[in-house]
């Protein structure tokens, strides 16, 4: 219990550090951090599925997409959401994400494992196809440019710093909400489903409903991150819904460590940072990222957050790592059958 309190304290200290340090840096860093914060809400929402429920979704960008497109379309076509009604748009984004997830969940949740992954991928690509081809609504390949950010009361979000604090606040609220969720009895039963679904069914849990609700919650947070993303990037295009974005989110979660929420945030910051840093250095920066992804899955399956645990295990029994690996895979085989 004490180590748990300690972890929360560490996260709060880290967040406070971000809130203090970032405003004192240049606008480049502020913008980068804002983008990463907005995107990491999506990554955390995916982690609820991947890390806590054991469902690897490859279509999570679709929820970011509906939120972002709704924001952009409302702002450009109806001039809605650029004043106080921005908060309404935030709500609309959440509801749309949840609604889309409620629909897709009906199709995808009945499958498990890689089949779930495949169905979510195909569903996500259908959303992409719609965004890409439905020119009159989505602007097709060019996407939609948002020319202005909301302005209400004395607050003008066009100011980078003000906007950073807004995104930061929404991020902190999301983190707290999701953390409460995964620590709740509901979250515990999700973890139970991840570990051994059959046993949970025998114990009387409606596992389908649990997974379905988790899927909808993840979609809602995805929609929320989409609204923020639209105003952060200033442009919404099919790029935001394409498979690559979903995969990015998934791999950020895996890189940081699935099932930790905070790990996903760290993964997001590393990838966003690496991308900015590498693209200024070398023209072939993308390959580095591809290799990072593959290497993470091959050599760091528990992610960065899992490193302390692995080190501890290694110290505990330094002999015969092969045996341990074999045992782990046996355990895995038992779980999947």
């Amino acid at each position, binding site marked *: 219990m004490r180590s748990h309190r300690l972890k929360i304290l560490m996260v709060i200290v880290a967040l406070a550090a971000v809130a203090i340090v970032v405003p004192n840096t240049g606008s480049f860093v502020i913008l980068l951090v804002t983008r990463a914060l907005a995107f990491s809400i999506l990554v955390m929402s995916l982690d609820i599925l991947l890390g806590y429920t054991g469902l690897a979704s490859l279509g999570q960008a679709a929820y970011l997409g509906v939120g972002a497109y709704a924001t952009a379309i409302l702002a450009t076509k109806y001039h809605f959401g650029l004043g106080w009604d921005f908060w309404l748009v935030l709500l609309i984004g959440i509801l749309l994400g949840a609604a889309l997830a409620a629909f897709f969940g009906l199709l995808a949740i*009945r499958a498990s494992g890689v089949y779930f992954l495949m169905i979510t991928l*195909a569903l996500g*690509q259908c959303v992409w*196809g719609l965004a890409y*081809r439905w020119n009159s609504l989505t602007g097709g390949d060019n996407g939609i440019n948002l020319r202005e950010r909301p302005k209400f009361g004395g607050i003008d979000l066009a100011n980078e710093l003000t906007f950073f604090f807004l995104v930061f606040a929404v991020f902190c609220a999301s983190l707290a909400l999701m953390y409460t969720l995964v620590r709740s009895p509901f979250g515990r039963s999700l973890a139970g489903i991840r570990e051994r679904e059959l046993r949970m069914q025998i114990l009387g849990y409606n596992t389908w409903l649990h997974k379905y609700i988790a899927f909808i919650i993840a979609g809602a947070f995805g929609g929320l991150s989409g609204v923020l993303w639209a105003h952060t990037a200033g442009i919404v295009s099919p790029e935001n819904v394409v498979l690559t974005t979903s*995969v990015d989110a998934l791999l950020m979660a895996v890189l940081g460590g699935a099932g930790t929420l905070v790990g996903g945030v760290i993964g997001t910051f590393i990838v966003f940072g690496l991308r900015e840093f590498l693209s200024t250095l070398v023209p072939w920066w*993308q390959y580095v990222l591809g290799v990072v*992804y593959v290497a993470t899955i091959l050599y760091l399956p528990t992610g960065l957050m899992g490193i302390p645990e692995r080190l501890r295990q290694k110290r505990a029994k330094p002999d015969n790592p092969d045996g341990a690996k074999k045992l782990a895979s046996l355990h*895995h085989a038992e779980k999947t059958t």
Partner: protein
Amino acid sequence: MQWQFWIIQTLNSVAFGGLLFLLSSGFSLIFGLMRIPNLAHGAFFMLGAYFGYSLLARGGNFWLVALVAGLGVGLLGIALERFVLRQISGNEQGQVLVTLGVSFIIADICLLAWTGDPMPLPAPQALRRPLIIAGYAFPTYRLVVLVIALVAAVGLYFLMERTRIGAMIRAGVDDMEMARGVGIPVSRLFTLVFLLGSTLAGIGGVLGGPILNAYPGLDADMLPLALIVVILGGAGSLLGAFVGSFAVGFLYNFGIALAPDLAYFVLFLPMVLVLVFLPQGLFGRVQL
């Protein structure tokens, strides 16, 4: 004129369906046997097209080029299976993600090697002229692609149903543990199926080149179609891949021709229906 439109679109659809079959039959077999969708399959298809482009630019014979490029991609498939997937056997989710990571790496390398411009692959000289029957013009090359796909389908059918290797693969698809138990070298079958599947995808890429061109993003365009074929037809089933490919070929082509805004979306509906009413797909052999 109206008739010409329908005939041409139908022909385009079946030709596209044939290409999809070359792509998704291997995809489905790999899925059926190894229980993982090889998400690098679209990248293999694209790589085949690019290999084909470069070899053709050096003046190779079209059919020979298709074969060589296909085998080149096939070797890459073996490498992926042997050196990467095998390292994390048992961890299916990890395997899928790795194939996706590999597909990104392939896509980036293609972008570096062949730039971002679309590369047209020339069809064989003899097949460029349209075939004229009863006053209607038919695109010869597409007809030939269709015939090749049909030949491949028959060949695969015989391989799967009439040979010892095919019987072993089917046994592995239906019950892997049992297959291992009776002494079938399942691990070698994995490699073989990967070779077969990626070679077919590579050949499909070259054959598709004159119709689709080689361009960055070809992988991401083709992969979801292969997924939908397998969701419709059912994983691990050759017949399912066959029926699914032509169904998707028709829907996609007519979708583009009649409602370009919604072309992708037209595919969505049958997929949803199948998922709701026949979650295993039309001819699925693999239990979900």
